[in-house]
């Protein structure tokens, strides 16, 4: 035991960050009930606050918490058999009473992630559950980040926990046949959290920007748990590479476009880390949407200026992305890249079908890209009209927010 004293509080804080979600995950898997798991974990942390201050921090805080929480859970089961716990869990609990888990299983957090991101839950519910139980954010923090009343969010979580336990959503890694699509769902939730932070609107900028860090934390966890999954690596690389530009993306006046960013303010450590993770993933030759988007971000990150950017390669990657995950927004970005690589006429040829489809009529980046290509093609009058359309599209503040979000989601230059 380490000396008794003020470091007990610090140890508890570290243990909370490191162990809380692991404790919740293990209990949830064993009990099949997230609420019961959360309650037992809360009791264990309360007990730790008392015991550690008195006796000193135990040598294995995670193990101490796990053992204590498990004991609390069993007490809870014995005292209240009417709780919404599967009777089988009760039997398992009795059987396991003597052998509390000594180690904190990282694998249980993977099962917890799959449960929190289950497709039978509404998307906003998946996001809230993942941030609360996997990332360990408080209800208040999540409510603030999504500009919701705390009571609304708390209610949403209560309902979600009830649905998970009563509808039979398991805290387990799905079988091989469902794994790929369920893993897609988990990654989508993490990326959604990242984009919510990336698109931080003015009023709640600081709180929301924290969502990027949380998403990266979740991405690191998933990557650590599934090191062989190339798309998870791609997602982590993509988030790191985008986040490397965070300081340069904002100035006093608002968002700064990629072309105008001070590249000396890009975070070189994040770029190096993201690029290394991406390179290792790409070497396995299992391409996917996230790896492709990360590769585009990596090419931007490697360039000293817009002119020095490898536009032919970026255009080719957008072509690959359009096949993997086709969308009009990807086509707009591809048109910009083709316009840089092969000249404005080639870019306009890519853009024409998007313009004709009318799919993105209110999307300012479409009109801005169109205007820029027309300008460079020497069609000044048409360019002026396109710029006017771009500005009209940006007039609405709410829309502007949405545009940025989609821009962040498209992974490329505006």
């Amino acid at each position: 035991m380490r000396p008794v004293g003020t470091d007990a509080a610090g140890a508890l804080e570290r243990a909370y960050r490191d162990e809380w979600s692991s404790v919740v995950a293990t209990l949830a898997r064993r009990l099949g009930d997230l609420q019961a798991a959360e309650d037992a974990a809360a009791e264990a942390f309360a007990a730790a606050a008392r015991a550690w201050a008195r006796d000193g921090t135990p040598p294995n805080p995670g193990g101490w918490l796990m053992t204590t929480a498990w004991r609390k859970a069993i007490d809870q089961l014995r005292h209240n058999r009417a709780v919404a716990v599967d009777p089988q869990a009760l039997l398992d609990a009795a059987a396991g009473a003597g052998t509390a888990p000594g180690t904190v299983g990282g694998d249980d957090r993977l099962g917890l992630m799959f449960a929190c991101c289950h497709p039978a839950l509404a998307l906003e519910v998946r996001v809230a559950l993942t941030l609360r139980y996997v990332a360990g954010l408080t209800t208040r923090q999540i409510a603030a980040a999504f500009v919701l009343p705390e009571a609304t969010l708390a209610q949403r979580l209560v309902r979600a926990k009830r649905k998970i336990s009563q509808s039979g959503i398991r805290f387990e890694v799905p079988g091989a046949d469902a794994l790929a699509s369920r893993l897609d769902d988990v990654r989508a939730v993490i990326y959604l959290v990242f984009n919510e932070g990336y698109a931080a609107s003015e009023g709640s900028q600081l709180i929301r920007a924290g969502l990027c860090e949380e998403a990266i934390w979740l991405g690191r966890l998933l990557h650590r748990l599934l090191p062989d999954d190339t798309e998870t690596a791609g997602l982590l690389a993509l988030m790191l590479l985008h986040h490397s530009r965070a300081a340069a993306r904002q100035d006093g006046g608002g968002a700064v476009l990629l072309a105008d960013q001070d590249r000396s303010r890009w975070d070189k450590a994040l770029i190096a880390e993201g690029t290394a993770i991406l390179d290792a993933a790409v070497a396995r030759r299992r391409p996917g949407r996230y790896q492709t988007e990360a590769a585009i971000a990596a090419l931007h990150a490697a360039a000293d200026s817009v002119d020095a950017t490898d536009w032919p390669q970026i255009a080719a990657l957008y072509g690959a992305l359009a096949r993997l995950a086709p969308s009009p927004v990807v086509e707009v970005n591809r048109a910009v890249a083709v316009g840089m690589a092969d000249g404005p006429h080639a870019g306009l040829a890519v853009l024409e079908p998007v313009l004709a489809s009318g799919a993105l009529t209110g999307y300012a980046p479409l009109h801005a890209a169109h205007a820029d290509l027309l300008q460079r093609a020497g069609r000044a009058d048409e360019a002026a009209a396109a710029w006017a359309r771009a500005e009209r599209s940006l007039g609405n503040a709410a829309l502007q927010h949405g545009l940025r979000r989609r821009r962040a989601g498209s992974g490329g230059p505006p």
Partner: protein
Amino acid sequence: MKYALLIYAAPGTSPLPDAELGEAWVAYGRSAKQAGILLGAEQLAGADTATSVRVRGGERLLTDGPFLETKEHLLGFFLIDVPDLDTALEWAARMPNTAYGVTEVRAVRTGTRWQAALA
């Protein structure tokens, strides 16, 4: 766990002729039976034949028709026993009506007081 798979569709919207639709349900029911998950299944008479009953102030009030007027009617249900929601959702997705209607999956509660009283 037990699940009720509640079968909904708007009448007359099946793209299949009646005979083929019937065959599809037979095949589905048979596969559920063979998988050993089938606890029961019923097909309901049309929603237009329903009678809804309320008792208010001691008085019985009858309404001619279903209590909810929806485009898609409850046509019947399967009761199955499978390990978890994912498996139940797979069985739901295989139901012929899901191609044009919808199946609602509801877990069945167990261990309630009234069930214990009836046991």
